[in-house]
């Protein structure tokens, strides 16, 4: 295993891709997965349950200071930032939204990059704002591996276009290609 953790960020237009990815994650995956998705503030329980029903691995919204375990998918709770505090612990924050986003993909990715460094795999999917660009840049800076969805393959291109314009991701892939990559983890 080349990676110690996987972070996935997505916003508008990423839902179908997320479903595919969660379905095909290996059931014996030995690393934690952090999922940071923009969503409506009030849409809460239904969303978590829907994803949990689909995912091949247990999926949960973590409590603050939740212990990180391998093979678990941690979904950033609505209206909170999710940070990786250290290799054992998740931290939540109610700091102001960044790029109009809480949870912020930039915060989640950057905090994971600092902890897992070159052992982090980050995937950025379709979205309608520029959140995620700073996150991909942070993962690159710490030597992690970054995949950005090909904008021509995105339902909404803004987020991935921004990331590609301002950073150099390791690979720019379509959803089928990202799925193939992830299924080999």
């Amino acid at each position, binding site marked *: 295993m080349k990676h110690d953790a996987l972070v996935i960020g997505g916003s508008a237009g990423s839902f179908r891709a997320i479903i595919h990815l969660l379905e095909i994650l290996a059931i014996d995956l030995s690393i934690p997965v952090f999922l940071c998705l923009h969503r409506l*503030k*009030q849409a*809460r329980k239904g969303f978590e349950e829907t994803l949990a029903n689909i995912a091949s691995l247990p999926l949960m*919204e*973590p*409590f*603050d*200071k939740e212990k990180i375990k391998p093979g678990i998918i941690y979904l950033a*709770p609505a*209206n*909170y930032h999710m*940070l*990786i*505090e*250290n290799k054992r612990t998740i*931290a*939540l*924050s*109610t*700091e*102001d939204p960044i790029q109009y986003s809480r949870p912020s993909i930039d*915060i989640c990715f950057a*905090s994971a990059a600092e902890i897992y460094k070159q052992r982090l795999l980050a995937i950025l999917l379709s979205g309608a704002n520029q959140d995620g660009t700073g996150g991909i840049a942070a993962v690159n800076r710490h030597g992690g591996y970054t995949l950005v969805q090909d904008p021509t393959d995105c339902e909404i291109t803004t987020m991935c276009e921004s990331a590609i314009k301002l950073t150099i991701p390791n690979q720019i892939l379509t959803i089928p290609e990202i799925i193939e990559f992830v299924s080999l983890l």
Partner: protein
Amino acid sequence: MELENQEIQTFVNTVRSLSDYDFTEYSDKSLKRRLMKILHDYHLTTESLLIKISENPEFLERIVKDITVNTTELFRDPAIWHSLRYDILPDFEDLSTLNIWHAGCSTGQEVFSMMILLNEMGLLERSDIYATDINSDVLEAARKGVYRYRFNVGYLNNFDAVIKENPRDHNIYHNVPYSKYFVVDKVRDNIRMKDYLLNKPVYEKMDLVTDHNPFDRVFDLVICRNVIIYFNYELQNKVFKLFLDNMNQGSVLVLGVHETILGPYAAYFKKKFQAYYKK
């Protein structure tokens, strides 16, 4: 911009040597993010920040205020307010006085939310409301009770969800006008709480890390939401001990939706309805 852990440590030590504030056991990531924001906003380096706080006590006070996170809303997370209304508070209806402490009350939105709910339940007159925060600026804002309207339209949706609607019985609708509690002034772009709500609470500056309970009271309800997420595990335990020592038996601690008691103090509480009951 990157900040080395050593620089953060030096900052914490400097603040501690200059004042009573102690950020030693604050959550690392959050403290680092706040410090980076401060350096960026004031165009300072770590070195120049340290010099400036050493030379200027008022600037130190301002930095301490900037470190703390003050985001809050009226009726944030309607589900917990439903639980307070239908599950938790009815058990306290027989008390002659209901003592309530908002620990880390920030700019006061939760204090007003609580008073509005208590009033709808006929409990406000019997309640004594105490509220504390480390930051004297936010306490001043709480005393004024004026909030921006444009960025906070969600307040009204939350009010509707908690005060007007009843998720347990959709046939019930309480037609409570906003004007009973606050004035919405779209021209001046503000939401202004009514005077009788402004005059009720007792506000006091308090640092949960270093200070004792400043009130001569033991509490029936302690509200501390999205405060301990900025503390590390050890400090969270200290704060739970502080609460426990100042709560009546059977009283209730309400934390943020994604906060929980992890350490040894979990044994002293029983979790029910998203709240912690002191055993």
